[in-house]
């Protein structure tokens, strides 16, 4: 909160430089088969109202019974956020009226959440890192979905999502720029996906953020904040913060004041606008849900879940740096997705870790990005890429030929080692063959040979010609050595 102000992060207004303060409430859908308090399915994309139990539809007399797996998922997430786990928590009713909330209240946790304070370490693109405080995580029900574009006078309500378990993860106002906010959500998403507690699929709404934005002159007390509701992509989170901060700065520099309110971000128009604020301020009239006893479990339950946790991104990154000699940046790229990290480890095992990282990051990721494919859909397996790295390491092929080989494996598949044999891609280390090629080139270019004695940089031209003559298969080190000797370059 009181970290020194970094002038680079300030936003220039007409009169002053302003500091932007951001805190976030991230709603992450819990990965579970059934809903938080009913036995209806959580699966996405069903026919309207097909995944609805009588509890979710709030039929009179129906009682909620909590899903044990959702509790475990919340605890796992809390552990992943290095947070305090509360052995006793309480479910409350948050009362409000909306057609897609059939109960007339959302079952949530208010004063006593299941998870307390924690923190997330966020790596920034420039190599620095920030620690973002987590205030709490609580379990709550999702609402149904309303469609407003089906009919001019009617809204259509589908309760399939109603009652699905959400984790609301509340950060402290520790973020100081849109970049930091985006990096925070990205990191949070990575942690959730590693833990397997939320699939992080933003397109399906599994991860949504309410973003609290305020601005102040550096060192001044916190300004009035506005809450931008339901931003559903990381890019939009960044845009919404920039847009909202500039709107507030313009108002303040004109001598105005900010009204605390809830706003919506419209990516199409690039603006935030007030949600026709409910005539009265929020009054949720929270009270403990009389249908549910307090949620209690013992430390042994928590310890058991802790033992089952996978290696998390921070630990994996540190291990990649220590064990494989990677730069923190490369390690960070590799651990961003668990599947990428697993793929890398399969390639790196028993091989040169740096060479493996270069091939995975530069060639494979580059190609996957270009084709819009995920690592799971990679046409080149870790075993195949490993074989290519081996062939380079054994001096069987040059780095340049390896790229051609990668291309063949990508498009046609096959065993790289066999391909090198069958397609005659082996590097020529036989100095006799290379020498013959060089002799021909020297004989054909007497003028260049003469120049080369004065201008040793011409060596490059000869190397190029030799590689061309040998179809790129000549061992570059051998070519260099032979050429230097024959041209008389020291």
């Amino acid at each position, binding site marked *: 909160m009181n970290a020194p102000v970094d002038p680079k992060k300030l936003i220039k207004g007409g009169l002053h430089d302003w500091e932007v303060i951001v805190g976030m409430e991230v709603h992450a859908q819990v990965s*579970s*088969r*059934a809903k938080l308090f*009913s*036995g*209806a*399915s959580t699966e996405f994309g*069903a*026919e*309207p*109202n*097909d*995944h*609805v*139990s*009588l*509890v979710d*539809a709030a039929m009179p007399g129906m009682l909620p*019974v*909590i*899903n*044990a*797996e*959702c*509790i475990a998922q919340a605890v796992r997430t809390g552990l992943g956020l290095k947070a305090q786990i509360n052995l006793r928590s309480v479910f409350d009713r948050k*009362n409000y*009226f*909306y*057609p897609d909330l059939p109960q*007339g209240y959302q079952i949530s946790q208010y004063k006593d959440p299941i998870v307390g304070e924690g923190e997330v370490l966020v790596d920034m693109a420039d190599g620095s890192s920030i620690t973002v405080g987590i205030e709490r995580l609580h379990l709550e029900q999702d609402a149904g979905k*309303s*469609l*407003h574009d*089906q*009919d*001019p*006078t*009617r*809204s*259509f*309500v*589908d*309760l399939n999502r109603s009652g699905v378990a959400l984790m609301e993860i509340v950060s402290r106002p520790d973020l100081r720029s849109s970049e930091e906010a985006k990096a925070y959500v990205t990191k949070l998403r990575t942690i959730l996906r590693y833990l397997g507690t939320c699939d992080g699929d933003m397109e399906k709404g599994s991860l949504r953020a309410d973003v609290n934005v305020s601005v102040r002159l550096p060192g001044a007390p916190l300004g009035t904040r506005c809450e931008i509701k339901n931003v559903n992509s990381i890019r939009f989170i960044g845009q919404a913060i920039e847009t909202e901060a500039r709107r507030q700065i313009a108002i303040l520099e004109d001598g105005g004041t900010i009204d605390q309110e809830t706003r*919506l971000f419209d990516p199409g128009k690039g603006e935030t606008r007030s*949600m*026709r604020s409910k005539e*009265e301020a929020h*009054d949720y*009239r929270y009270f*403990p849900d009389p249908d*549910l*006893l*307090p*949620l*209690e479990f013992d430390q042994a339950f928590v310890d058991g879940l802790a033992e089952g946790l996978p290696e998390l991104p921070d630990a994996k990154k540190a291990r990649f740096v220590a064990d494989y000699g990677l730069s923190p940046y490369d390690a960070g790229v590799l651990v961003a997705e668990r599947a990428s990290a697993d793929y890398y480890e399969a390639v790196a095992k028993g091989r040169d870790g740096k060479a493996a990282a270069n091939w995975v990051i530069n060639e494979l990721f580059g190609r996957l990005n270009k084709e819009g494919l995920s690592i799971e859909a990679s046409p080149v397996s870790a075993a195949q890429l490993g074989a290519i790295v081996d062939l380079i390491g054994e001096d069987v092929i040059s780095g340049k030929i390896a790229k051609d080989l990668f291309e063949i494996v990508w498009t046609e598949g096959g065993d790289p080692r066999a391909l090198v044999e069958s397609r005659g891609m082996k590097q020529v280390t036989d100095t006799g063959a290379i020498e013959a090629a060089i002799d021909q080139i020297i004989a054909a270019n007497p003028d260049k040979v003469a120049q080369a004695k004065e201008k040793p940089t011409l060596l490059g031209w000869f190397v190029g010609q030799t590689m061309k003559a040998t179809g790129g298969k000549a061992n570059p080190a051998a070519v260099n050595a032979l050429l230097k000797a024959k041209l008389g370059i020291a």
Partner: protein
Amino acid sequence: MSVDERTVRRIAHLARIAVTDEEVGPLQGELNAILAFVEQLGTVDVSGVEPMTSVTPMAMKKREDVVTEGGRAADVVANAPETEDNYFLVPKVVE
């Protein structure tokens, strides 16, 4: 603590209960009677007493993460005044 007329109307509105002007006065009286009773309870010293959450000490019942319900959309919307393709239809609500 007691409620005034405005508060009665506000609570009714939050709960989406239609209350006529004639009903406000009597409701205010009833609510204040209840609040007076609660106030009486409030004089009891309960410092150090855990709030009772259950008459018999018991742990909250939990369910396994298994899909046991669903697939009855027609039943779910059966009581709705208006439906289409198993959606509930309501007067348009747009923020």
